[in-house]
C-alpha cells in the first residue's frame, strides 16, 4: 500500500505567517527524505502562494484566513493553499511572467512563474468567494515506510 499522510493548518492572512507556513510544510515533508534543493523549492513555492493571499485576497483591511493543507501520497507532496478572499479576475493573465496587478508596489509579478518552475504541477481555481492553489512535486529519492 502507498504511503499516505496529511496535515492541515489555518492561520490569518498576515505576512508574519509566511515564515511559519514555509517551516510548517518543510517540517512535514521531511518524512519523505527530500534533498535540500527540493525542500527549498517547496518552501519558496509555499511562500509565493501564501504571499498572494496576504497581498491580494483581502484588500479591504479585514484579513481573513488562509488554509494550508499538505498531502503525501507515495513519494509525492501535494500542497493546497486556500483563501476566502475576492478571487483572481483573470487567472491566465495572473500566471503570465512579470504581470502584477499592483505595479506601483514594486512587485516582480513572478510569483506564479516561480511556483510553476519549482513544482511539477500548479493548478489555480478562483471565483468571487476565494482562490485555491494546488501544487504538487514528486520527491525523487523519497523513502518512507509503507503503512496499512
Amino acid at each position, binding site marked *: 500500500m502507498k504511503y499516505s499522510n496529511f496535515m492541515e493548518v489555518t492561520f490569518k492572512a498576515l*505576512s508574519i505567517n*509566511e515564515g511559519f507556513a*514555509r517551516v510548517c510544510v518543510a517540517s512535514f515533508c521531511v518524512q519523505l527524505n527530500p534533498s535540500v*534543493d527540493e525542500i527549498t523549492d517547496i518552501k*519558496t513555492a509555499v511562500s509565493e502562494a501564501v504571499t498572494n493571499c496576504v*497581498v491580494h485576497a483581502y484588500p479591504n483591511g479585514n484579513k481573513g484566513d488562509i488554509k494550508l493543507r499538505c498531502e503525501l501520497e507515495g513519494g509525492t507532496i501535494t500542497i493546497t493553499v486556500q483563501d476566502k478572499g475576492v478571487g483572481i479576475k483573470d487567472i491566465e493573465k495572473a500566471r503570465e511572467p512579470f504581470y502584477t496587478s499592483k505595479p506601483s508596489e*514594486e512587485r*516582480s509579478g*513572478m510569483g506564479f512563474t516561480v511556483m510553476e518552475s519549482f513544482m511539477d504541477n500548479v493548478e489555480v481555481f478562483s471565483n468571487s468567494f476565494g482562490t485555491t492553489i494546488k501544487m504538487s512535486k514528486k520527491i525523487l529519492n523519497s523513502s518512507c515506510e509503507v503503512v496499512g
Partner: protein
Amino acid sequence: MQIKSRVHNNTLYVLLCGELDEHTASYTKSTLDELFVKPNFQKIVIDLSELSFMDSTGIGVLIGRYKKMKGKNIPIFICNPSQHAEKIFKMTGLYEIMPKIV
C-alpha cells in the same frame, strides 16, 4: 532581516542577513533607500552570503532599488548568492541589470 553596511574604496557594501519575503520587504526597502541616499560612493555591492531565504518579493525589492539608482548612474552588483537565490535571479533575468561579481 538585519542589514549591515560599510563604505570602502567608493563602494557601498550591503550585507543582507535573514529572510527576504513579503514580511521583511518593507523594512528592507526603507533601510536600503536610507543607505543609498548618502553621496559617498559610486557603486553598490549587495552581499547575499547571509540571506537564508528569498522569494520573488525579493526580486521586486531589488528591481525597485535598481530603478532608483539608475537615475543617479550608480550601478548595483550582487555577490555571494545562494544556489537557490541564483536560480530565481536567472529565472527573472535580474543579473542583466545587477551583474554578479565574485
